[in-house]
């Protein structure tokens, strides 16, 4: 059984605006999108990072899209993903590596992504439709991951069903404070129930990531880095090519 992954420990946060102003050109360029001088990750920056992210997604056919709100400059990023969990591939305790137990259906069975064509296969396996939305929280000035899951017949998965499918590595940590971590909330744009990874700790783990990239003078896309940390916790994995693309941007 793998141990819970340790997120980078929070470092004391220097005033971000000052710290970054002296950074290298690569970091400064995406920061120039901040509307106000005290906005570390403003909405315009968020939209810019998402646009870069989606550009790469389109190149590799990863399915992310941008949705704009009517009569507004606001929007969010979304992706629909199908997963099959064959009973035979359930990992048992004793394995020390974090083995992926959920296979993306398009890799496992090479089925089309259109949900009308995906069907349940054997009685032992289940097909689950996941929807992932990345929204911007102006209150916390960070991106927030909203997601929901349902069986193909439309029945939504309950929180406990989602817990079961969360990777063993992350379960111990999440179980300690479930109310602080994943909760069911109303999607602020669609008004429907979604599960949400609570945004108030995002700052804590993102700041060291960004500081480090500044130190090693390497460009980073906030959304790519953030999603690569929070995504796997809820079954969303990013191919490594996103990281290469981010360091090539700007």
């Amino acid at each position, binding site marked *: 059984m793998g141990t819970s992954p340790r997120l980078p420990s929070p470092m004391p946060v220097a005033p971000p605006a000052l710290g970054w102003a002296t950074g290298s050109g690569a970091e400064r360029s995406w920061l120039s999108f901040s509307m106000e001088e005290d906005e570390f990750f403003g909405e315009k920056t968020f939209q810019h990072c998402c646009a870069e992210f989606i550009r790469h997604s389109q190149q590799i056919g990863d399915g992310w899209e941008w949705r704009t*709100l*009517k009569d507004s400059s606001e929007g969010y990023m979304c992706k629909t993903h199908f997963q099959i969990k064959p009973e035979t591939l359930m990992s048992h305790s004793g394995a020390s590596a974090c083995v992926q137990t959920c296979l993306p259906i398009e890799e496992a069975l090479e089925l089309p992504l259109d949900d009308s064509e995906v069907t349940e296969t054997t009685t032992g396996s289940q097909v689950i439709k996941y929807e992932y939305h990345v929204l911007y929280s*102006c*209150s*916390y000035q960070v991106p927030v991951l909203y997601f929901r899951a349902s069986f193909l017949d439309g*029945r*939504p998965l*309950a*929180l406990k069903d989602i817990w079961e499918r969360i990777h063993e590595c992350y379960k111990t940590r999440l179980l300690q404070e479930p*109310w602080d971590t994943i*909760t*069911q*909330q*109303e999607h*602020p*744009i*669609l*008004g*429907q*129930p979604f599960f949400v990874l*609570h945004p*108030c700790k995002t700052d804590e783990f993102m700041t060291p990531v960004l500081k480090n990239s500044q130190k090693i003078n390497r460009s980073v896309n906030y959304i790519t880095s953030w999603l690569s940390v929070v995504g796997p916790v809820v079954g969303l994995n990013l191919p490594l090519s996103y990281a290469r693309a981010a360091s090539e941007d700007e």
Partner: protein
Amino acid sequence: MTDDKDVLRDVWFGRIPTCFTLYQDEITEREAEPYYLLLPRVSYLTLVTDKVKKHFQKVMRQEDISEIWFEYEGTPLKWHYPIGLLFDLLASSSALPWNITVHFKSFPEKDLLHCPSKDAIEAHFMSCVKEADALKHKSQVINEMQKKDHKQLWMGLQNDRFDQFWAINRKLMEYPAEENGFRYIPFRIYQTTTERPFIQKLFRPVAADGQLHTLGDLLKDVCPSAVAPEGREQNEPRLKTDSRSEQE
């Protein structure tokens, strides 16, 4: 805030006379009488309806009972919205009492959040308070408070204790003397006419020139369709605001 004490009390003690009726298709062993209750505007449906639940469950069999949910004229009621907000949004133009239908089956998964326990209501409430403080004080005031202060805020709401609640909330409603207000005003505008559930944006209480923003300024900025052009007095937007630290 001290001169506003009367207003704060009036807001806190606001009540809505409500008549709860069991949905006609629920299976009962005998006739279920309607149940009347004064609902606190500042609270949440699932927090204040234990008696309603008990009353109807008395005439039902255990196997016919699952998660309770409420509906008004076909619209499932979101328990996570303050009661006063639900009423103002959906029923304020109808005659009192507010007629709510009670359901114990066919929970509308696509519309309503589940409310598995009082803890879920507390978590939601505290999450709103924290988000509001993120806007007002960059979370400094809420984070400096001890767990027992957070608990007191919640217990004050749960037990309808104005003084207990405001002993803590007043700290969340203060700002440094040198500032003219909070960093941003925590607000949400709800309308029945829009797709999205609410409008929430960053809005500073003070303009660049130092002038204090008014409610009218905020509306013109974030919701211009709700404000009539200057000089015309039609359809005055009616606003209900609560001076709690929570947004609504």
